[in-house]
């Protein structure tokens, strides 16, 4: 599946990345060559192979991951907001969500 510049633009939109025309010209062939490289996996018949998802070790999978349910102090509002770019009234303030520039999401 050859990757085109329009594919790259679509992926950039999905990933919330702004891509300049110059970046597009370098990225498209690079991503295409890496994708072509990883497609060597198609040489292998994996139709009867389970995917390696979940824990990587049996011991890890057996470990009880749920801690005792008791209240503990959390980070706290002041500390959580301390490094926010635009804190306001105990919240994270962001620009308006509706309106502004339209993004076409033809996924």
């Amino acid at each position, binding site marked *: 599946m050859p990757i085109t510049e329009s594919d790259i633009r679509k992926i950039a939109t999905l990933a919330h*990345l*702004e891509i300049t025309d110059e970046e597009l010209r370098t990225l498209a062939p690079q991503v295409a060559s890496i994708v072509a490289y*990883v*497609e060597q996996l198609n040489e*292998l018949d994996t139709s009867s192979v389970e995917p390696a998802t979940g824990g990587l*070790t049996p011991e890890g999978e057996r470990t009880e991951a749920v801690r005792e349910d008791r209240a503990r102090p959390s980070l706290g509002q002041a500390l959580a907001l301390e490094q*926010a770019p635009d804190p306001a009234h105990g919240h*994270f303030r962001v620009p308006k969500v509706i309106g502004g520039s339209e993004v076409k999401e033809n996924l």
Partner: protein
Amino acid sequence: MTAPDRTIELITSELGGDGTNARAVTARALAAAERLNDTLNAFLQIDRAGAISRAEGLDREAGGEGALRGVPLAVKDNICVRDMQMTCGSRILAGYHPPYDATVVERLRGAGAVLVGKTNCDEFAMGSSNENSAYGAVRNPWDTGRVPGGSSGGSAAAVAARIVPAALGSETGGSVRQPAALCGIVGLKPTYGRVSRYGLVAFGSSLDQVSVFGLTVRDAAIVLGTIAGRDERDATTADVPVPDYAADLGGDVLGARIGVPRDLLGEGVDPEVRARVGEAIEAYRGLGAEVVDVELPHARYSIAVYYIIATAEASSNLARYDGVRYGYRAEDPADLREMYRLTREQGFGAEVKRRIMLGTYVLSSGYYDAYYLKAQQVRTLIKRDFERAFGACDAVLTPTTPTPAFRLGEKTDDPLSMYLSDIYTCMANLAGIPGVSVPCGLSAAGLPVGFQLMGRHWDESTILRLAHAYERAHPLAARPALMAE
């Protein structure tokens, strides 16, 4: 004759005797860090005030215990240390100060360590040369025209230059073993789940593991023993007993079986690397180990599998850098979406964007089965290869890297050739097994070469014991051009 290295063992044995104190040891490390940083760029922050005050505190506490008491250490800049900045080598986290200590940092402090600073790294640990840091490349102390490897290149350079005897790094596909080999030191990646990742910035969550650099195998073993073990704050840590790694060192290797996958030592390997690693294999034979052939038929697919899984996981993990809660935010965006896009465009470097794009692509609708699922299936085959190999041997030995350190700029225009420098290391991350890189001599140009030993899940002890036996018989006598006085 070279002076003996100031290992953890030497530093802790000197403390208290003839008036040597933690303050003096720390001041020496800080002076070296400051003197060498103009050239090496290994540190993004040197915490002189914090380190001196910590060392003075240790000196006031008479009779304190701790395996790392008074030992100066450095920490990669993607691990949270309270009161120090953490940039992950990225503009998007410039000036960020984590509000808590990572569990590994808490444990190092608990054992008496003095943290001298945060080390430079490839942005979000993505890279094999340290050229992807937003704060400039790190230089290799053996040859400053060459890369130290990556992504934990700053920690590697700091240890190789004898500024600190050990340092923390992190691995996703070889980011500690690869720079350890290129810098002539020991690099250890523990079993997946051995060490807590609470406070380690996430990259590829099924691969990431906090890892250790040491001047010697013993240094790495001592640090691993301090940081290893179950942590309630990281659900991926396993409830498996932690042996005393340092105490387990020593003894002979008679009868130990070392597996060599000959198929992987053919094309693509620098002839000098092949020669040094061949000598290391012969050295093991000389020490009484048995060398057996093993096959890892799917290992050659590991880079392809790795770059699907790691980028897919990274694209998801890095979604959190959006300019909302912390870090950089682009100025004057028209709306929320534009703020996300501009923040990420301006905050991330080229390699991070490339990997987010790749990861988003392989996970996108219609491609998931073809790439991500397929990669996870081949990952199963790679894991099975190792299970079979460990039926016939106690450790698998390969070169750590296909070549010695390359020149700055040599691979920056060709991402794929850069990725291939992790060809021997990333298979251990995919299988979740431990691996250790050990120096085994120099190339004709005077650059370090390393081999690695990979072991069974949870069996760091065996590979450390084997590594230590080699190191004791064949210590690397040469020293880098740039190092602490």
